[in-house]
């Protein structure tokens, strides 16, 4: 890394933050909820309820013995109709718990703030809250908060970058739940023994920078940091470098460089659990895109089918041709709008024909735009040529495994090559080679 350059490479992507001034609307209860048992990285949950059981709001319906996992709760009261394997948005078969909603919203008895007095009880509470990385990665937060070398960690970075176009859910969280957020930061710092916290927000969210800045101006340990409004400032390694100048070497975790990064919504969810005992059952989601009639920010219960959510936004304005879970740069295109919202969803974007159409790929002209755009300073064009000839050795040398699939290379490519996708395939190809 050049000592002359304080920033990692980044690209300009049109922001399209159409919904930033849309206060969060609460959605009425749907008739049925479809709750997936795979909502995080790690071991999938096993249903802890059976068909015919009555469930209440806040009740655990799925859990796992594994360490890297997080429990899943019901956001409604009602009756378990079925537990069946269904094709999920990722394209694998997940057990889905279907609940018919009785609309009484009876809260589970015994929902009360947990007793937290030290690190162990805090981490236990974080696990019980069901919170995972809500920025998109869905890594169980209690695992992230408990690295082997916690004593070497000195800084908590709160990710409020929201560098993906369209999405404003984290911005609304910072504006509407600022109190919970700041208290969540304080709680986390206290129990993990961290001296410093940096709330990193992209410069295009001026009101949030101002509001949170005012709230912490007397707090010496917490600072608000303004990031360049470029993509992908919110990627973990990028945000660490931009805010602290620290580098997380390939194959290492942020904790190895003395930082823990957490998304703003995750901290708000943890603090809500600390204060009320209500686990993660709902999510703030931006609904936008050219095919949506009324773009909105919606607080939606996890398990709500996407078509109901769209209906709440007055339905489709045009025939949707592509529906994305997440942002347009890293989100997943889904094949069915009957799929339900999961924990790490932060946006549902529906686009019409014009947007869904992919431009024709042409030959690589070696312009080097992808190489210049890559925040990890990889060489996507060289990688894709190495993958084309299935040269595993060259791919390892090119460090393809460092690619975080941010999509910057594909975005800037004048030949419209799907470089990011090629990297994904190349990573898989390298990983398979390692097993042999």
């Amino acid at each position, binding site marked *: 890394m050049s000592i002359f350059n304080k920033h990692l490479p980044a690209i300009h992507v049109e922001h399209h933050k159409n919904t930033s001034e849309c206060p969060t609307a609460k959605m009425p209860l749907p008739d049925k909820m479809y709750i997936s048992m795979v909502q995080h990285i790690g071991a999938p949950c096993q249903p802890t309820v059976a068909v015919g059981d009555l469930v209440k709001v806040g009740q655990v319906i799925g859990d796992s013995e594994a360490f890297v996992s997080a429990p899943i709760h019901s956001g409604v009261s009602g009756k378990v109709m079925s537990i069946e394997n269904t094709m999920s948005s990722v394209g694998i078969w997940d057990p889905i718990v279907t609940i018919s909603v009785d609309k009484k919203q009876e809260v589970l008895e015994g929902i009360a703030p947990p007793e937290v007095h030290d690190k162990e009880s805090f981490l236990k509470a974080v696990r019980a809250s069901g919170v995972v990385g809500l920025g998109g990665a869905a890594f169980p937060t209690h695992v992230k908060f408990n690295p082997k070398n916690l004593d070497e960690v000195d800084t908590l970075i709160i990710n409020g970058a929201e560098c993906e176009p369209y999405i404003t859910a984290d911005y609304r969280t910072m504006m509407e739940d600022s109190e919970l957020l700041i208290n969540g930061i304080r709680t986390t710092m206290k129990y993990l023994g961290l001296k410093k916290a940096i709330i990193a927000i992209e410069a295009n969210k001026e009101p949030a920078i101002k509001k949170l800045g005012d709230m912490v101006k007397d707090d010496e340990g917490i600072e608000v940091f303004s990031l360049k409004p470029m993509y992908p400032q919110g990627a973990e390694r990028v945000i660490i470098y931009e805010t602290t100048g620290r580098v997380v070497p390939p194959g290492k975790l942020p904790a190895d460089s003395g930082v823990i990064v957490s998304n703003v919504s995750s901290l708000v969810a943890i603090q809500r659990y600390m204060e009320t005992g209500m686990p993660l059952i709902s999510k703030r989601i931006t609904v936008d895109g050219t095919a949506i009639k009324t773009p909105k920010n919606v607080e939606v219960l996890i398990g709500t089918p996407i078509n109901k959510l769209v209906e709440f936004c007055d339905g489709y304005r045009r025939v949707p041709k592509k529906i*994305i879970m997440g942002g347009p*740069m890293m989100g997943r295109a889904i094949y069915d*709008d009957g799929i339900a919202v999961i924990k790490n969803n932060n946006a549902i974007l529906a686009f019409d024909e014009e947007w869904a159409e992919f431009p024709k790929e042409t030959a690589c002209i070696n312009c080097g735009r992808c190489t210049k755009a890559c925040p*990890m*300073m990889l*060489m996507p064009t060289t990688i894709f040529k190495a993958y084309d000839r299935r040269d595993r050795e060259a791919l390892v040398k090119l*460090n393809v495994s460092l690619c975080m699939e941010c999509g910057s290379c594909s975005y800037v490519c004048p030949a419209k090559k799907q470089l990011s996708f090629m990297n994904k395939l190349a990573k898989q190809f390298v990983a398979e080679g390692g097993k042999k």
Partner: protein
Amino acid sequence: MSRYNQGTLTVSSSPHVLDNTTTSRIMLDVIIALVPAFIMSGVVFGSRAILLTITCVASCIVFEWAFEKVTNKENTISDLSAVVTGVLLSFNLPSSLPYWMAVVGCFVAIAIVKQLFGGIGQNFANPAITARIVLLISFATPMTTWPLPNQLMGAADAVTGPTPLGIMNMGGDPAMVPSNIDMFLGFVGGSLGETSAIALLLGGIYLIARKVIEPTIPVAFIGTVFVLALLAGQDPVFHVCAGGVMLGAIFMATDYSTSPLTTNGKIIFGIGCGVLTIIIRLFGAMPEGVSFSILLMNILTPHIDNLSRRKIYGGGGRK
């Protein structure tokens, strides 16, 4: 409400939005950047220069179309790269060159240098440069007969004479060398598109502003020529404006497929071009060396790319 599912929705890998830059847009920018030099070629050398450029562009398009037709490849003339090659080749020719020779050059550029190696992005050498060198070797006399400026349309016998570098190379009278102002504006003998430094610079600034090229290679190339000329006790401004340095550094050495990817690589490439140009000019038999130096550096590009692989994030660059 109706439900949308499999069959009606497009599923593809992210990212789902793309920049609007395309290959043809980049080529169009290069063509726009070449317009000032094109106009100056008409002002300086008259209509023969304009007609020669049009001939080259037309034949490059025809050869590209024909080659792809014959070999059953996808037609790529709409990416405009053949147009760029045509303009650049013509800019490297004396305006008096017989048309059929120019057409031969276009065949070499498109069919041999570009398409036989796999088409756009695959060629290891710059098509226009290579074609120019082939023409120079094959038709030495017409390729080095330089019409002098201000030969207007209809002049039956164009007056010819040596280029400024030719005068220098023959050890001629320094008084015969044109003034730096004439050199900068382009009112000197030479290839039809290379003489006007100001027009080429304008194009270069446009390309940099449009982010089509980075200034690295032109600055390294021109800077090296300037410094070495100074060290050799010659007029550096003369060496920078004379011959093909401006055209070569801005438009030919920056060709994507034949120049290195990384900034360090580009610096090495630019300096190499500059060093070779000055060596050929001062010590070689030829008065000018830009084409040869770029071609040589083109051949070295894969090696420069290998040696200048940049450090990745986290430092674990070369292993």
